[in-house]
């Protein structure tokens, strides 16, 4: 239905020359019928990017094309009301002075849909988001989750080719958030609408997306499938942002061999351009570390234990060297002070050039 092509997108809010740009030189190709997430910490520029796609913000430089048609360039912007997109806002933005019915029907009326078709459309959409029967309610008579569904229905009923979602689940409680996550994903499949979804929650991004665009400091850090982004982060910023990670300084001892403090040795695939003797950082996910008693490998001492229900998390201090966070099956029990051996699944590790100190 709709593809989005973003090239060199740049936006800066402060006029100062050395003020950091909110979004800088962003390139992104979003294919038709995809669920794409813009992921990053708050202030990273993801919402600015979304609002430029919607047309609320005029870019300083760069272009946005939808289906090959130019819709945004500096001084040359199709206003939001002529883009035919849908948008769901973080705080729902359901109009408090209109009933559920009036909220949802708004876009259809603007499109002058005949009454009979309008009613059918309306009922179909309300059923899609499980709101049937609440037509005459006012928003303040609805729960947060229901208001969120009204916002969704209002956007979906006009069948946009692109639906923009700005942290739509962040105001819901944990349980509801999980339910809505499943529903959103199902909706995207059923409608074939291109979803562009902004969130700072990496778990949400991993669960929902076909592709994730990790944005940090206004720049695109990596664009790939959730598996890619999680298992093969492009740089340490991405590695650090995508869940828990141990970043361990190491030296390249030979081709494909790393040595870290505490006698840790790893056989890994090195990225291009890294030679023997270079200083690097290796990112190791807590779940890729095995602890055992009396195994072969680096020695460590358990310094902290936290029981989290489905897993147990240990802090294992290499001797001498860094402390690693390790997640194990709760059945595997060590006590603080236990001497253990650390084994690392090197195929799941990533190596980055050391950031300048």
């Amino acid at each position: 239905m709709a593809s989005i092509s973003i090239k060199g997108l740049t936006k800066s809010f402060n006029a100062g020359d050395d003020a950091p740009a909110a979004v800088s030189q962003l390139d992104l190709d979003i294919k038709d019928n995809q669920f794409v997430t813009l992921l990053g910490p708050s202030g990273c520029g993801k919402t600015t990017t979304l609002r430029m796609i919607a047309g609320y913000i005029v870019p300083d430089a760069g272009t946005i094309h939808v289906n090959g048609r130019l819709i945004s360039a500096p001084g040359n912007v199709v206003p939001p009301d002529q883009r035919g997109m849908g948008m769901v806002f973080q705080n729902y933005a359901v109009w408090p002075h209109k009933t559920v019915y009036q909220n949802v029907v708004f876009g259809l009326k603007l499109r002058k849909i005949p009454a009979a078709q309008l009613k059918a459309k309306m009922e179909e959409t309300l059923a899609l988001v499980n709101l049937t029967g609440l037509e005459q309610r006012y928003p303040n008579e609805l729960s947060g989750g229901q208001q969120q569904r009204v916002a969704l229905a209002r956007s979906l009923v006009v069948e946009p080719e692109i639906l923009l979602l700005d942290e739509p689940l962040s105001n819901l409680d944990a349980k509801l958030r999980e339910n809505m996550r499943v529903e959103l994903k199902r909706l995207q499949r059923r409608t074939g609408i291109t979803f562009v979804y902004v969130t700072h929650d990496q778990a949400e991004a991993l669960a929902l997306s076909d592709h994730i665009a990790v944005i940090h400091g206004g720049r695109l850090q990596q664009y790939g499938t959730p598996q890619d982004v999680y298992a093969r982060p492009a740089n340490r910023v991405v590695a650090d942002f995508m869940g828990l990670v141990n970043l361990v300084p190491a030296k390249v001892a030979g081709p494909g061999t790393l040595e870290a403090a505490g006698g840790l040795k790893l056989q890994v695939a090195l990225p291009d351009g890294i030679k023997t003797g270079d200083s690097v950082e290796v990112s190791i996910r807590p779940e890729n570390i095995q602890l055992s008693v009396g195994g072969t490998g680096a020695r460590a001492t358990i310094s902290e234990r936290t029981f989290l229900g489905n897993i147990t998390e240990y802090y294992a201090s290499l001797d001498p060297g860094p402390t690693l966070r390790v997640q194990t099956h709760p059945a595997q029990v060590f006590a603080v002070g236990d001497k253990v051996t650390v084994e690392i699944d090197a195929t799941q590790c990533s190596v980055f050039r050391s950031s300048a100190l």
Partner: protein
Amino acid sequence: MSVQAIGPPIRVRGPRTRLRFEHFVMGGAILCLIVLVVLPLLTLLLGSVRGEQGMSLENFTEVLSNRLYVNALKNSLILGAWTGLFSLIIGVSLAWAVSRTDVPGKGLIQVTASLSYLSPPFLTAIAFVYLFSPNAGLINVLVRDVLGLPFLTFNVFSMAGLVLVTVLHTFPFVYLLASSALLSVDASYEEAAQILGASKLRTALSVTAPLVAPAILSGTLLAFVNAISLFGSQAIIGLPGRIVTLPTRIYALFDYPPEYGLASALSLLFVVITVVALYLQRAFLARRSYVTLGGKGARPQLMSLGPARWLVFGFVVLTFVVAIVLPYSTLIAVSFSKSWGLDFWKGLTLQNYKFILFEYNVTQRAILNSLGLATVAATIAVLLGAIIGWIDLRTRLPGRKLLDYFALIPLGLPGIVVAVALIQFWLAMPLALYGTLAILLLAYVGRYIPLGVRAANSSLRQIDPALEESAQILGASWLTTMREVTLPLIRPGLFAGWLLVFVPVIQELSASILLFSSSSITLAVAVYNLYETGYIEPVAALAIVNMIIIGAAIFVANKLGGGRIASRSGATQGLAS
């Protein structure tokens, strides 16, 4: 989703920047502001430096050296200072009683403050003349001739009389700001001081007072500015007592032949005083912001006054009697009298009302003019305010802050100054507006546009921009978004703003007195003129008619403005977070 397609996105056009409807609306609003405020002010500036031969400062030298003008300046400052001081004392006492003590009759305090604020000050002045004019004032006659206590008489035609009459109108400024500040101080601040061992007095002095001081000072400065700007009471009380102030001096400069240059220079001097005072006021108020920071569940502690609370209550009753009961019962009594005097009750009559309503041909015209002008002026001021507020808050238009400042300027313009500026500007224009209803309308809208802007601004701030953006992304044009989303949501705020403009406009005298003609006469001017001509009893009848109209208008506007939305404002607030 469905097989039956809704159709492609609407109105797809190639990207190009073009003028849209909203640009014209915004441009129009900016133009209005320029014509209403900026150009007349520039004319005033120009007029003040135009001498006999070209540009000169001779007007200013004259104004600053001639005793006529220096005295007026001095009197205005004295009046403002005394009024400010007494407003401070009365306002803070009442505010403290309401928010911090167990004094009975708190409702009475609220009523007194609101009614005093709403009462046209020139009517209060007239009522006090009926009671305290040196020879014929009813109370003076009673005290001197009946009781034989001549030393107890009070001459209202004096600075003391002028201050008394003015304070009755200005103390609510201090009261309102002080009481809202006191109520917003979180009790925990005071409790924190007490748990550390501070006495009640110590707590009040070292915690509460500094927190509310900015609001109190700000209210006092507002009282000061309003006090010196009132033409009516200063003409009615001041002139017979030979106390000439800035507004009355400027008014006198328009006796034939009008001295435009001097009037402009004196007006500018006047503006400097009010602007400095308002600047200080805003600076003080800005410091207040931290008060509300912690004030979530404010439950201020009430001090038990014991028997002393009846003393405080007595003060409240006294204020109520002097500010409300005395003037209005006097006006009512006079309006039904054949002849005002100690024996007035012996000859009660409806003749005054009959004369005013049916025989005096000015009244009906004045009522229609005033109602029409107030309605139209309030509507325009609020709509302009909404557009200007919207530009300020929702666009990135360069210079929008400047626009906001321009819209606030009239706050510092006394009514008579607005009139002086408008007369000169429109006399220089090819359009013959002088003496028409139109120039009065311009004066009212220009003078009260800040109230419209502020009402719109504070309502717009509570509306999440996402509510408008979500209409836009669904394909709604600017006009549709305004009509369907923005305006319905800010309607209660706009209605409040509308009333806030309507009430002062319908009793406006300071600017109208220079701008009216026999066909465009307004109610307040009619009352003043009738008083000046010496019709004692009919004036009172007209004053009562005036009050009834104001009361009815407020009642109707309140009924209309309540609306259904207020009941759902909870949802709006949730969004604003």
